[in-house]
Every structure is written in C-alpha cells, then in structure tokens.
C-alpha cells in the first residue's frame, strides 16, 4: 500500500487515501487529508471530525451518512444534524470525506 | 504430550476426542474458541472437570479476555499468557494440535 510523508512522518494509506493505522492519526494528518479532499478546515469541520472520532471509539465503526446525520442531530442539535449543513462542509459526502480527515476507514455500506 | 485444542466444544467434537484419547499425565491447552470449555456454567464444564483427575488443563488468557470470559474460568484450570504457551511447548517432547 502507498506510503505518504506527512509533516516528516511516513504513514501508510490505502488505495483511496484512507489512513491504514488509525492510531497514527494527528492534526497534521487531518490537515493533509483535508488538502487532498479540497476542504478548508474550520471549527465547524473540526466539530464533525472530532464527533466521528468519538463515535468510532465508542462503536468501532465509521457510521453511514444517514446514521451520522441522525447522531449529530442528537448531540449537536437539528441545525447541524441535517444533510444541507453537512454537505456544505463536506461537498463530496460528509461520511466519506470527514471519515478520511478523521483517520477512520471508509464507512461500511458506503458505495 | 501437549494437546492443543482450538475449536469450540459446542460446535466441534475435537475437545471430546482429545479428552478421550489423551493419556494420563498429559497436558491440554485450550486456545481460541476452545477456551469457552474452561468456563463456568457451560455444557463442556463437566467434561473438563472430570478430565482434571488425569490431565493438566491450561487455557490461554488473551483468548479468554477477548471473549469476555476472563472472570469465569473453572477452578483448577491454569491460565497462561503467550510466554506460558511457549513454555508448555518447550517443556513437552511432542505436541498434538487437534484441528
């Protein structure tokens, strides 16, 4: 699998660019992944990224977008738990892009 | 002889065959799904307890923990870690894996 150099550290990614070993994740890696995904990281993006990392720690899975939207609505309120808000932050798919930036695998059932 | 069993006793007959054919004084090491047999309340518990008269029974600790069974081990079963697994193999002149 391909290796990339991020802030002076060699890390392994899969063929779609997802981090292979999520224990290696740090903010430099998140910023690198965000540039790859053409996402300008703001506090609003970080909120979703951090939410995903907590979700993964609790359930050992990257949620499908429908599940992510619902879970964010529950935790951060309905103004954030909707497709419009999340797709504005991550235009190419909130689950797919935010998971990559969070260092998680691609969500199960994501086509 | 060290006998190593890795299949669940409620799914396969390998533990039963092993206990039937192991000679007195042999050691039996339960690993992977076979560790369920060494836990309290299960269907295989009685067989393990009966076998303890003639055999030394060991179970691999990391496999017990990975199955939520670390706190349920039958009395008299020796829990070993990976180092203990290596020691058992080294101590016995031969070993048999029941696949």
């Amino acid at each position, binding site marked *: 699998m391909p290796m990339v150099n991020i802030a002076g550290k060699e890390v392994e990614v899969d063929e779609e660019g997802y981090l292979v070993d999520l224990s290696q994740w740090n903010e430099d890696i998140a910023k690198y992944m965000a540039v790859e995904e053409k996402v300008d990281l703001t506090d609003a993006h970080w909120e979703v990224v951090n939410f995903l990392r907590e979700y993964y720690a609790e359930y*050992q*899975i990257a949620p499908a977008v429908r599940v992510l939207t619902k879970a964010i609505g529950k935790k951060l309120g309905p103004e954030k738990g909707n497709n419009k808000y999340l797709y504005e932050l991550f235009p190419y798919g909130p689950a797919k892009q935010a998971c990559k930036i969070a260092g998680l695998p691609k969500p199960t*059932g994501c086509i | 002889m060290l006998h190593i069993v890795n299949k669940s006793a409620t799914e396969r007959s390998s533990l039963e065959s092993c206990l039937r054919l192991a000679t007195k004084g042999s050691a039996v090491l339960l690993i992977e799904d076979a560790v369920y047999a060494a836990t309290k309340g299960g269907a295989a518990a009685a067989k393990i307890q009966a076998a303890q008269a003639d055999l030394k029974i060991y179970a691999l600790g990391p*496999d017990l*923990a990975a199955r939520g069974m670390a706190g349920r081990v039958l009395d008299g079963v020796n829990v070993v870690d990976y180092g203990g697994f290596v020691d058992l193999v080294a101590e016995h002149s031969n070993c048999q894996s029941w696949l």
Partner: protein
Amino acid sequence: MSDMDMEDDGSGIVKKFMFLNRKAPHGTVYALEGLEVVLITAAFDQDVSLVFTDDGVYQLMKGIDTKGIEVKDFSKTYRALEGYDIEKLYVDRTSMEARGLTEDDLIVDVTVMSDDEMKNLMAEQDVVISF
C-alpha cells in the same frame, strides 16, 4: 440479493430478512463478516431481524477485551445497531442457558425466545441468511 435491484426508487417491496448468527467471535471470521452484511442491509430499508443462537450467543458477551489478541473489538458495534434502525435482536434461550449465560451478561438489550417462539419467527421470514 438480486431482489434488491427493484428497490431503486426507494419505495419497493420490504422483505423480512433474518440473519442467523451461530458462531463465536474471533475464532472464525463469520461473526464480523455477518455484522458487516447486516450494516449494509440496513441501507436498503428492509425488515431485519438478528438472531443469536448456538455459539453465536457468545458474540454479545459484555467485558470483551481484544487487546491481547490484537483484533478489533466489534462487540461494541452491536450497540450502534439501534442508530441503524436495527432493533430486532433475538437470543435463543436454550443456547444461552446451555452456556451458563443470562441476559445480564449481554452487551445489548435483546428479546430472549423459547424454541417455539424461535421456530415461528424463522418460519415467517422471506430470507434467512446464516453466518
């Protein structure tokens, strides 16, 4: 799963799917792979039931710690199923009791079923997939 092809407009037929889990976790890959299939099926809005019988009951044990064998602890993922709208989890009482377990030993809320209840549940399914 060609039956799903007709679901494209999202308003198609809903079938009753049962996933029958009969294997202990970790010793084989069936439990983990079965769980992945269940999560994917959730995207198709089908009527999904999850049944744990025989050694499959062991998948739901509380207090699992997989660090020592260096594999993923997917027992935590069963707790995410509610978020995927998979809420019908059934455990076969005969299998549970044969392993010295009670509902309190399990990581999620389940409905415990007698043999007769389980027979009826199985008989009314359109599709049964066994892992």
